[in-house]
């Protein structure tokens, strides 16, 4: 029985699975979070104060309780309710809701950015409410919030590393397991850091470029 074995080419597939799992859960959470955030952001921008208060308090909890604790609580809780979920399912549900909470504010700002008068102008051109939404409010409003959207999306990619605590074999947990087996933390950690950097750096640069372009 050999306890410690150095990194080898056999581990490529294992690492690749970790990388794919990270990408998979991030893309899923960002997509679901964006769609839900868009809907709730819209509801928040048109509804009355009392509804907003209720919605806001719920979203607050998602934003204010540390993600790591949300993950532990949720995966324990669904278990106790008698509906055990695999780490991937619990992880993507919580990560999506967490994303949604932030996206809601992003999109709400987008809807608020498009002034009321622009909507009224569109209506006076004979557009229906939904047409004005579809052709005026959404394109203009959404374009203006693109940089903030990108910011949230990037933080979700990074925060997806936390899903490792409930046992999902994403990149960080994969590398942790390899560190245990190889006792070579530095090499492995640097590789992991480089991966996140390669994904995140071009996107954040692009986001900032768009922000500058739109500011002009």
């Amino acid at each position, binding site marked *: 029985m050999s306890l410690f074995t150095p990194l080898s080419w056999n581990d490529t597939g294992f690492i690749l699975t970790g990388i794919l799992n990270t990408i998979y859960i991030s893309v899923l959470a960002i997509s679901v979070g964006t769609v839900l955030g868009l809907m709730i952001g819209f509801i928040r921008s048109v509804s009355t104060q009392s509804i907003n208060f209720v919605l806001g308090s719920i979203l607050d909890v998602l934003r204010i309780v540390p993600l790591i604790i949300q993950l532990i609580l949720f995966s324990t809780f669904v278990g106790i309710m008698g509906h055990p979920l695999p780490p991937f399912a619990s992880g993507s549900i919580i990560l999506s809701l967490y994303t949604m909470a932030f996206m809601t504010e992003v999109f709400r700002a987008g809807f608020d950015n498009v002034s009321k008068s622009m909507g009224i102008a569109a209506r006076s051109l004979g557009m229906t409410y939904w047409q004005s939404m579809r052709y005026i409010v959404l394109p203009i409003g959404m374009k203006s919030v693109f940089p903030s959207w990108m910011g949230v999306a990037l933080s979700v990619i990074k925060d997806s590393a936390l899903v490792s605590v409930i046992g999902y074999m994403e990149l960080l947990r994969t590398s942790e397991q390899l560190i245990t087996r190889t006792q070579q933390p530095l090499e492995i*950690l640097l590789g992991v850091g480089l991966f996140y950097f390669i994904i995140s750096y071009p996107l954040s640069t692009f986001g900032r470029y768009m922000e500058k372009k739109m500011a002009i």
Partner: protein
Amino acid sequence: MGDYEFHWLIVFQAFPQMLNGAFVTLHVAVFSMFSGIVFGVLLAIGKTSNLKIPKSIASSWVEVARNTPALFQIYMAYFGLGAFGIHLSPYMAVLCALTFVNSGYLTETFRGGLQTIPRTQYVASWSLGMTKFQAYRYIILPQMFRRVYYPMTNQFIWSILMSSLGILVGMGELSGETQRLQSLSYRTLEFFIIAAAMYYVMTKFVLYSADIMSRRLFKGEI
């Protein structure tokens, strides 16, 4: 609710230890924020300067801090540096990682703040006979801090929440302490519900006091 019975008594008995953990959370967040501000100001000045070396150090610091997960940085500070024989305690590792990230984000915030201050103000303060340092101290920085007050509040909240990653290097902040306590009795749900509530209260309290402070400091003009 299945056949799960909640046991709350044991959590209340352990409450003083959790409060202790919350205290550690708060002070690691405060320290990382202060040192983050110091480094952030230096880096922002470095980034806006025309000198090549400070500029490139500042940009790489900022990019690495912003584009890698905090969890990775904590591991790096703990086991990564350990490979070089640099041994930080869990507390120091978390403090360093949070400082590193905080300063990375604050640099951009400060730079944005600096850029909004018109060039003429520098010229005006020099023409009043102020030195460069005095101009920064009395004219530029106070205005900048006013503009970056809310982003800074958010960064502080972020520090409180992210210090929860201390659980992964065995640090005794609120999450780590909760993890320890729950493993003695396996009352995971009860303990973490209370921990979540404590984070909520702490964060709300910080937001509330930041709001009051801003009214005192800036009298509403931001």
